[in-house]
Structures are given as C-alpha cells and as structure tokens.
C-alpha cells in the first residue's frame, strides 16, 4: 500500500492559483447563465467578461505569497505577474470589441465569452510556471479555445484559418512534446530550473541531446511566436479571423510565448554554447528582416499588419539574445507600447469593416479602401495615421520608445551589429506603414459615402480608439513610470 502523502494546506499556497480560479469560475458561470436564459444580450456577456478579468487582475496585483505554489508547480515570480498583468489588461481592451455596430453571430453566443476566459486561463498557466508539462497544458488549453473562436466567425476564410492554425498548432505541440521528452530523458526532470541545474552539472553533455531538444523547442515556440521560417500560418490566420481577434492574437499569445522562451533560453544562454547564440541570432535577424520585406509587397492592410507583427516579434526576440535585465525589461516595455498601437490599428480595421468586399474580390481591407480617408473622415484618418507612425517607430509615438530602449540595450551589451540591423529594419518598416499613410492622406477618395466605412462603428469602439490614440501619442509621459514598474518586476525574478 502506498504511504499517504501529507502536505499542509498552507504549503499549497493556493492564492497563487486565485487569478486563474476566478476566470474559470467566470467561464463556468457564463455557461450556467446561458443554460438558464437565452435572452441576454452580447453586451451583458461582454461586460461580465471584463468584470471577471478585472477581478483576476485584482488578484494578480494583490498577490503577496511566496514564489512557489501548488506542489511547487506554479511559479509566481516577477515576470509571471508582469506578463499576467499585460495579458489581462490587453484582454480587457479586446473583449469590448465585440460591441461593434454590426452583429456577428459569434458574439451572440455565450460560449464565445466562456472560451475567451478559458483561453486567458491557459495563457496565465503558461507564464506562471516553469514546469514543462503545465506549460504544455496551458498552451493547449489556450490554443484549442482560440482555434474554436476563430472558427466561430463562420466565414469560409475563418474555417480555413482555424483549420490551418489547428494543423500548424498540432505540429508545434508535437515539437514541444518531443523537446520536453528529450530534456526529461537527459535530466529526469520537467522543471526548467532543475533541468538547468542538472545540465550545468553535467556540462551540457551529451551535446547532441541538448541540441535536439533546443531545436525542437525553437520550432515549437517559433510556431507560436511566428518566427521565420515557422511564420507561414500567420497572414492567413489573421486574414481569416475577425480583426478583433487577429489583433488579440498578435499580442497575447505572443507575450505568453515570449515568457516561455525567456525562461527556456535564459537557462541555455548561461551555458555559453556558441552555436546556441548563433541559432538565435540568425532566427532573430531572419524573422525581423524577412517579415519586413514580405510586408512590403502586401496588398491588404491586415496581411501587412500580420507580416509586420512577425517583424515586431523578431525585434523583441532580440531581447532574449541580448540577455541583460535591461533587454528583458525592454521586451516587456516594447510589447506594452506595441499593444497600444496595435490595439488601435486593428480596432480601426474592425470599425471600418464592411459586410461586402467592396474594393477587391480577394481582400477585405485592401490599401485602396483607405484612399483619401482624410477627406471623408479626417479624424479617423489622423488617428489611424498616429497608429501607423507609432508602429513604424516614429518618435514621439509609443513604439519608438520600445525600439529606443531595445536598441540601446543591444548597444550597451556590445551587440553593435545587431543594433544596426535593428535600426535598418525600422527604416524598411517605415515604407509599408507609409504606404497606408499615402493612401489615406495623399490619394483621392473612391467614394464620398462615409457610411460604407462606419457600418461597424459604435461608441464603444470609438472610446477604445480614442483611448489608444491618446496613450499612443502621449506615451513619452507614461514610459518612465512604466519602465520603473517593469524593471522592478523583471529584477525581482532575476532575469
């Protein structure tokens, strides 16, 4: 007979699970409510979801326990808290996008909101652990929920996108398990910090095993972070899903992926294995350069934003390569600032969505759609212009400060060559963002009918747009407090 295992309840540190528990409870209650009455409007579910997210955020901010919890599986360190905050805040901004002017069937279904909450829980588990198995569970929970939500958009392209994402995701999951398996074989543990210790004591032998594990992991994370050459799904999936969800996908799954990559590669970076640096270096440079170059030739704004988000990922991944505290803080700073501008850009696409593809047989948001927008809707054009310049890294808008900080981190750590590549890439990126500016400001409008642009615009979307535009253009003021908070969180977790 097995010995009973005695564990005191305190040692479980159950509060470390509170943020996730709140959201699970929220998701279940939404399903229950839906079972009882069908008459509730999407606004009810939206606001309820935002409230649960806010509660969860409160639990994260108020967390005062130890680092470890729940059989030491959960790890609540600085970056876990920080990335949870980013995930929750971003989610709280994106959920209200359901309240557009037009009705879409997915937003009328309560399941959408339940799935949304489950997805957030998945991401939270991904960032709040260094256990390879729990990371996997979080990853899959979130991904499965996300595939379903994409498919719920229920257009031909949406099903295609969901299927494509699912297939690619399944392959990535396979890669991930292979990697976890190899590391387990090598070290007998699935906890990243233990793997690190054991590998260190063994002197990273056998090198072929470590190499295989790393390559598989790079492949798995590469899919999630849409690194070149694992990026091919990104534009199609973005195009197929609703703009609201596409914008969300460009931020939140990636921050969760970054945290995992940060934990994982930080362990390997200490090994001083040269080829590892080189692999990462090549991946980073390829991702940002190819993402940018392919974005140059896109004809659809959403696809352009998809490729540009690949380039942004590459840019941010350089932080992991640089590996200093400053760079890691820069990663989060960049992503928060990127979130503001990206939120605005995708919300604008969402708000100007029209039922039919009026401008192009193939694309929903071709560049011509925005021709002469300054003459039809000056305020919208100026706001979209701000987002485009922000994404392009024009001072003084938000992303510029992230770029500044990351490039400076590269310079300070002796990566001068990388810094120059990063700078040149920003110059390339300007071109395709400018293309939209050129259409909006310099070309003549195709029609003067404002209504075809505003069919999905609602007060909620306008508020979000105004908010994003305000923060994007005044970010020079918020950068300093933001940086202090981020640096603080990153420092206490020792990255």
């Amino acid at each position, binding site marked *: 007979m097995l010995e009973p295992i005695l564990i005191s309840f305190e040692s479980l540190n159950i509060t470390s699970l509170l943020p996730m528990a709140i959201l699970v409870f929220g998701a279940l209650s939404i399903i229950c409510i839906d079972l009882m009455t069908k008459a509730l409007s999407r606004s009810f579910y939206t606001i309820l979801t935002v409230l649960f997210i806010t509660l969860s955020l409160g639990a994260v901010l108020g967390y005062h326990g130890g680092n470890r919890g729940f059989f030491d599986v959960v790890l609540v360190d600085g970056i876990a808290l920080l990335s949870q905050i980013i995930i929750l805040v971003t989610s709280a901004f994106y959920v209200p996008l359901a309240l557009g002017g037009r009705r879409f069937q997915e937003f009328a279904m309560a399941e959408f909101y339940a799935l949304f909450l489950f997805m957030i829980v998945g991401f939270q588990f991904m960032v709040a652990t260094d256990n390879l198995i729990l990371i996997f569970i979080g990853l899959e929970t979130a991904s499965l929920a996300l595939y379903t939500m994409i498919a719920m958009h229920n257009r031909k392209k949406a099903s295609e996108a969901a299927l494509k994402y699912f297939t690619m995701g399944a392959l990535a999951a396979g890669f991930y398990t292979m990697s976890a398996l190899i590391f387990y074989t090598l070290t007998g543990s699935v906890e990243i910090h233990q793997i690190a210790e054991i590998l260190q004591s063994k002197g990273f032998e056998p090198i072929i095993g470590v190499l295989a594990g790393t390559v598989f992991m790079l492949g798995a994370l590469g899919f999630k972070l849409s690194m070149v050459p694992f990026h091919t799904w990104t534009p199609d999936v973005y195009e197929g899903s609703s703009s609201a969800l596409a914008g969300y996908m460009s931020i939140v799954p990636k921050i969760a992926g970054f945290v995992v990559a940060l934990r994982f590669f930080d362990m390997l970076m200490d090994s001083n294995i040269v080829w590892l640096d080189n692999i990462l270096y090549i991946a980073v440079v390829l991702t940002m350069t190819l993402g940018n170059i392919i974005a140059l030739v896109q004809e659809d704004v959403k696809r352009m934003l998809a490729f540009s988000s690949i380039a942004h990922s590459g840019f941010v991944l350089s932080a992991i390569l640089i590996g200093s505290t400053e760079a890691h803080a820069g990663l989060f700073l960049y992503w928060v600032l990127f979130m503001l501008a990206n939120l605005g850009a995708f919300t604008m696409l969402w708000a100007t969505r029209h039922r039919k593809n009026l401008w192009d047989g193939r694309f929903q948001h071709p560049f011509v759609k925005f021709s002469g927008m*300054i*003459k039809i809707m*000056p305020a919208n054009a100026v706001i979209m212009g701000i987002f485009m*310049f922000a994404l392009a890294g*024009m*001072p*003084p808008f938000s992303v510029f*400060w992230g770029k*500044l*900080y990351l*490039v*400076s981190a590269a*310079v*300070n750590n002796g990566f*001068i060559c990388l*810094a*120059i590549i990063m*700078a*040149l890439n*920003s*110059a390339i990126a*300007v*071109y395709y963002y*400018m293309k939209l*500016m*050129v259409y909006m*400001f*310099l*070309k003549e409008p195709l029609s003067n009918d404002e209504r075809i642009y505003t069919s999905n615009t609602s007060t909620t979307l306008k508020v979000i747009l105004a908010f994003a535009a305000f923060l994007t253009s005044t970010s*020079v*003021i918020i*950068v*300093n407090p933001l*940086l*202090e908070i981020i*640096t603080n969180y990153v420092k206490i977790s020792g990255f």
Partner: protein
Amino acid sequence: MDHILSLIIFFPLLAGIAGFLVNKDSIRVYGIVVSALEFSLTIALWIGFDNNIDGFQFVEHASLISNFGMSYSIGVDGISLFLVILSTFMTMIALIGLNIEKDAKNLIISILYLEMTMVGVFLSLDVILFYLFWEFSLVPMLYIIGAWGSDRRIYAAIKFFLYTFAGSVLMLVGILYMGYFYFQQTGIWSFSIVDWQLLSMPFNLQLWLFGAFFLAFAIKVPMFPFHTWLPYAHGQAPTIGSVILAAVLLKMGTYGMVRFLLPLFPDATIYFLMPIAIVAIIMVIYAAMVAYAQEDMKQVIAYSSISHMGIIILGIFAINAEGITGSIFLMISHGIVSGALFMLVGCIYDRRHTKNMSEFGGLAISMPTFATIYGIMLMASVGLPLTIGFVGEFLSLMGFYKVNWLMTLFAGTGIILGAVYMLTLYKRSFFGEITNEKNRGLKDLHGRELVALVPLVALVAILGIYPKPLLEPIDLSVKKMLVLMHKKAVLPDTQDFILKVNTIKGGE
C-alpha cells in the same frame, strides 16, 4: 521670460490643434495671425537675449525619462537664436504668400506642426529630444509635398521621407552608443549635449560616431552624392513647401554639423576635414553646372541651393571663427534669399502654370515690380557685395582660405558659375522682347505677394549693409565652441590645427 522657449516650441502645436475648430473660410488669416504671434515671441526672445553671454540662455530642464537619462532640456545660444527667428519668420512669410485654396485647413495646420518641429530642433539641448523633433519634421513635410504637390508628388514625397529617415536611424544608434559611452565614463545616464561636450573621447570611437551622425546630416543638407531627393522634392512641392524646405529644413543638417559634429568629435572632424571639403567643393561646382543645364526655373534654384549648401559646409569645416560664423550667417541669408526666390517662382507659376524658361522672355516689360524684386534676390543669391548673400559667402570662403587657398579658389569658381546660371536665367526670362503672347498683359505683383516679398527685400539690403547685430552673438558662441574643441581634442595634431587656422599670420 522664464518659459519663453517652451512657449515658442509648443505655441504652434496648441494653435494647430485649436485650428481644427476654426472655420475653413477664416483659416488662412488664422494661420497668419498665429505665425505672426509666434514670430513676435521669437523677437521678444531676441530682445531678452543677452549678447554678452556665450553659453546657453533661457535654459529649461525637466527630467522626462529619468531611468534612461532623457530629459526635456532646451536652451538657446548665438548659434541657434537666429535660426529660430529665421524659422518663425519664413513660416510667417510663407503663410502670407500662401494662395492654395484646396484643403487649406489641413495645409495650414501641417505648417504649424512643421514650425513646431523646426523650432524644436534648433532649441533642443537633449539629443533624444532633438531626434524626436528631427524625425517628426518629416511627417508634415511628407503630407505637404504629397498632398499639394504636382503630378509626381507622391513619388517625391516618399523619396524625401525614406531618404532622410533611413539616414537618421543610424544616427539613433550613434546617439545611443554615445549615451552608453557617457554612462561608462561617468556612471550617469545623460543625453544632454552640454554634458556630452565636456567629454573627451578616444579617437577611434570618434571616427565611428562621427560617421553615424554625419550621414544623417549629409542626407538632410543634402550633400553630394545624397542630393538626389532634393530636386525631386522641390520640383513637385507646392510653393510653400519649397520655401520652408529650402529656407529652414535644409539648415537642420548644417546646424546639426555645427552643434554636434564639431564640438563632440573634434579629432574626427579634423581627420575627415579634407574629404568632406573636397565633396563640398564638388557639390558647389557640380550643382552649379547642373543648374546651368536646367530648363525649369524651379530646378535652377533647387540646384543653386545645393551649390550654396556646399559653401556653408566649407565654412563650417574651416574650423575657425570666421568660417563658422560666416556659414551660420550664410544659412540665414540663404534661407531668406532662396525662400524669396521660390516664392517668386511660385508667383509666376500661378500666372502662367509653367516654370519652363523657354516659355518666358520679356517678363520685365509686363511685370516690372516682379522683375525688380527677382533681380535683387538673384543678386543676393549670387553674392553681390552689399547684399545679404555676400557677407556669409565671403566670411565662409575667407575662413577656409586659412585651411587651403587652392581649394578656396575652386570653391570661388562656384560663385562665378552661380553668377553665370543665374544671369542666364534672368536674361532668358526677363529681358528681350516678349516672344510668347501669353506673357503680355500678365498682372504684376500685388497685395499679398508684395506684403510677403517686400520685407525680404528690406532684409536683404539691411543685413547686407549692416550684418553686425547678427554676427556678434553668433561669433561669441562660435568662439566658445572653438575653445572647447581645442581643449577636448585628444590628438596634439588636432590642437595644432585648430590653433593654426584660428590665428592671423603676423598678428595676435
């Protein structure tokens, strides 16, 4: 007068935002009033400016991103004072001369934003702040060229934007490296130019950073061979765009050279002096020759701008008080003169809808006032003594004469060539009989155009005869900078060179 500089920077911004509320019909007058107010603010600044202080005045300092050492730090000295006044003055003049009706509101608001960025560039003492204004100045200009220009405007606007943007991203890396170097040396993060100027740097590092900064400035100026964007931009831009581009935006590049390259990297400056001077001379002569070959009147003036910018660069790299003071004066005079010339071309273009010289001829008969003002500006551009153009050109060349007399001689031929193409232009367009009937009975300059142009004519004469009020404060600040350069140079050769070019033979 405590916060007058902040006021000068942000007044156009606020006025621009408020301008969205002003009705279309009144926006032109609104623009003129705002720019006149802004101009009077800068005049107040000049009155309050103490001519006996060589350092920065009206300094304001507030920490902006303290973790990073970036601060909101602005100030004015003799070098920047008149460039600021030039910016606000030329903006006002350009707005008075403005006659675009289409989407005038957007245009005027863009001009006001542009004015903010120009003033901001000249007043920033923090390098990151400088970079912010520097980059942001591209945005309104992109819009102005791209939306109100002629046929190939979009291509020209994008070329202008990408060219200058690509140049300055490398400067950003340079700035960040410099900040890091400062941190290594002192343990403090700072991007203040005043702090940076006190730091001595190893020679090798100077070379690299010089290169990063120089590229951005050289593209902006624009120096040969990076000049190809300028004729395009001028060719397609509306009159007001050309006026501001030629009068102020190009000066940002040369101002950057004076403010950053010389005091920060004295050894690298001397090291690169000869190559840069040779390129500058090529620029002077080559651009003058190309100007001679142009058919389009606006292109002639565009290329003459490049030619004159060459002399400005030559003056800066003379590394002595005469040369640098002269080149700063030449920046101002070139701003006034080229602004006026572009405006005059705009006047004739409005009447005839062509800028081709072969279409003109005998304009002096139908438009005598126009011909007179054009003639005066042309003479000033050529550098006729007693006009504003002469002072700066003479001082710049005199400064460089101490470095190398032979090269100065070559640069001098540029002036002769300048006279050749300008006088040819004048002959072909204004003299002779009226060959093209369309030119008969053209309306002479009137109202708005005269109001805009007469002050420029007055300035050309007054400052040509008595440039001292401008030269004195400039000279004081330049001398301070030279002393600093001499002090912080790390190579003895550099120090010797600076001493050599700054002493008058036989005297002192």
